[in-house]
């Protein structure tokens, strides 16, 4: 049993999304270019089996396979599952069947979808044919879906050289993962305190080190931390770099200083930008304090306090 999530703990959606690119290699290139030309290609193994979709290496012998064959756009459903509620980016918007289809001439089945009015209209062994997309691009979605048909098995695969004009050699495969993220109890306390412009860490009951930001456990001793300790607001620059390369997603003018800052009372440094001083005058040991802006969750940057620099020995263990 796990405890129900505390209503006091922060939660937020986290979307991880990226348009990955794929270099196809010779076999997948021929397969996807073929789909664009409304031709389904498979590969023939040394044992004579025809694999659709094709693979580059024989799953039994590991030998490289390059013998392409063309199979029919008709086939037989080998198994299926009904999907009553299609989700975003699935091939059909109306309820459909996920199907494995053994195309005529192939020895293996292809995963796709079947457009059918309901589960009663689907059965293993039923005959289906490809419904091609109106605007093919050289992707598996060039098969819009399968649909029922009455045509008999049209027989064997025919050799194909796999050559087409303007072959597809790469594709983009957008990926998206939707999470609900919660940082947990200790970071929630830390973030809530930041809203009051206070920095609150947690002390390990064993080694007495103060962790900022707190994770709720000491990574060295492996035990829970609970004692809250306010640190800062002032601190010491322990080390830094001068950033001259503008990051795509950051609206900060270069050059600027990115520093590790040990807040007074904390036993390890956190990271922040240094402002209020020319970038080439920042130094290790510089004493700084946070500068907040309206609505910011974190300090916008840290600026010099005007105090004398900290002695190296005072912070060298915190670097």
């Amino acid at each position, binding site marked *: 049993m796990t405890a129900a999530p505390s209503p006091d703990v*922060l939660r*937020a*959606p*986290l979307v*991880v999304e*990226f348009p*990955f*690119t*794929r*270099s*196809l*290699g010779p076999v*997948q290139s021929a397969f996807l270019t073929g789909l664009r030309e409304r031709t389904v290609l498979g590969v023939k193994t040394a044992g004579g089996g025809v694999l659709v979709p094709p*693979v*580059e*290496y*024989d*799953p*039994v*012998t*590991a030998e*490289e396979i390059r013998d392409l064959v063309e199979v029919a756009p008709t086939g037989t459903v080998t198994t299926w599952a009904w999907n009553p509620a299609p989700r975003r980016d699935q091939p059909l918007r109306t309820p459909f069947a996920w199907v494995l289809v053994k195309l005529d001439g192939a020895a293996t089945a292809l995963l796709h979808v079947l457009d059918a009015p309901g589960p009663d209209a689907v059965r293993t062994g039923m005959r289906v044919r490809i419904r091609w997309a109106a605007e093919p691009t050289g992707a598996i979605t060039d098969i819009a879906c399968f649909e029922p048909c009455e045509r008999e098995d049209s027989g064997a695969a025919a050799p194909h050289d796999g050559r087409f004009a303007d072959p597809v*050699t*790469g594709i983009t*495969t957008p*990926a998206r993962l939707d999470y609900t*993220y919660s*940082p947990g109890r200790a*970071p929630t306390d830390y973030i809530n305190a930041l809203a009051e412009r206070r920095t609150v860490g947690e002390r390990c009951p064993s*080694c007495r*080190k*103060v*962790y900022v930001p707190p994770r709720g456990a*000491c*990574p*060295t001793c492996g035990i829970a931390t609970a004692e809250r300790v306010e640190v800062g607001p002032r601190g010491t620059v*322990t*080390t*830094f*770099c*001068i*950033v*001259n*390369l503008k*990051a795509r997603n*950051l609206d900060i003018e270069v*050059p600027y200083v*990115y*520093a*590790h800052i040990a807040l007074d009372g904390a*036993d*390890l440094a956190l*990271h*922040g*930008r240094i402002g209020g001083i020319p970038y080439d005058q920042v130094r*290790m040991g510089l004493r700084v304090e946070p500068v907040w802006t309206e609505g910011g*969750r*974190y300090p916008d940057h840290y600026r010099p306090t005007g105090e004398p620099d900290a002695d190296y020995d005072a912070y*060298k263990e915190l*670097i």
Partner: protein
Amino acid sequence: MSGTVTGKEPVAVVGIGQTKHVAARRDVSIAGLVREAAQRALDDAQLTWAGIDAVVIGKAPDFFEGVMMPELYLADALGAVGKPMLRVHTAGSVGGSTALVAANLITARVHGTVLTLAFEKQSESNAMWGLSLPVPFQQPLLAGAGGFFAPHIRAYMRRSGAPDTVGSVVAYKDRRNALKNPYAHLHEHDITLEKVQASPMLWDPVRYSETCPSSDGACAMILTGRTGAARAPHPPAWVHGGAMRSEPTLFAGKDFVSPRAGRDCAADVYRQAGITDPRREIDAVEMYVPFSWYEPMWLENLGFAAEGEGWKLTESGVTELDGDLPVNPSGGVLSTNPIGASGMIRFAEAALQVRGQAGEHQVDGARRALGHAYGGGAQFFSMWLVGTEPPPG
């Protein structure tokens, strides 16, 4: 079986294969890329797929290509059908720890001959994106790829008093070494020290020419025991010691300049190999140097120099290809960085040195070489020491 088998089986590297590392291999799929390295390793060992008992594969985070559990898809390409296949994942050190997991299967006599392989096809994604997902409530990383490393380098410079030219000396050396390695990604034929020193300062104190490239590549090795080594067509490299250590990325007292996990890992390897003076007893080192300054830092961390003294070895030419402790004769990570494969390339290049098969970047008379990998914000370390002779016993 006749009699009782006791003790550990010695491990021999009998096959090594790499792809020519480049920025983008648009002509092959990921399967085609790993196959190329694996086939070359098999050819080197004069083995076929049937001679392989198990496959151990590694790569960096799945987000780097967006293929979840790529080992499932790669089973066909690596002839793993009907055999055990394992995936290892320890961030940037993964190439090293993958080889060690494979070696342990031989040591323990679980398998007779193991194919181990690591890869990255960085052109299919963006590693920096993969490492900096926008986690809610967290402060975004303000500094980009090199911004994580540059402050630690500054801390090293402060601690050691090293002159600020040392980083450029390393980069100039590694890029020249890469010219002798046909598999290296960067071949900068017109490189000069002045060009390195004139390259843009990206994350002061790190210049552009002191950073690693982003590469597509794979590296494979065939590991076997005594019997397999006796049948091998070329001299094997023998594993004399191997170890992994880890520590949290962040904890109070963490020493990013010389992490304890790295020191302990090296000490363990030397103990296994009977090495008491690494500086004198080791002939070549392939260490994971993603930014040039990590060479002097790791020279200290791995026990080749006292604390604060590593830069003196670099500056005086000791780590040059013709110096008495050549470091990264292959050109290193600074010249080739398919992230997941980079650690295994270090291990494989160390093995090539003691097999006498490193070609133009061969260190004369290399009998013992160290391969080193690290990753995950100085969280994971893996190393092995290989030699020309079988280990004693």
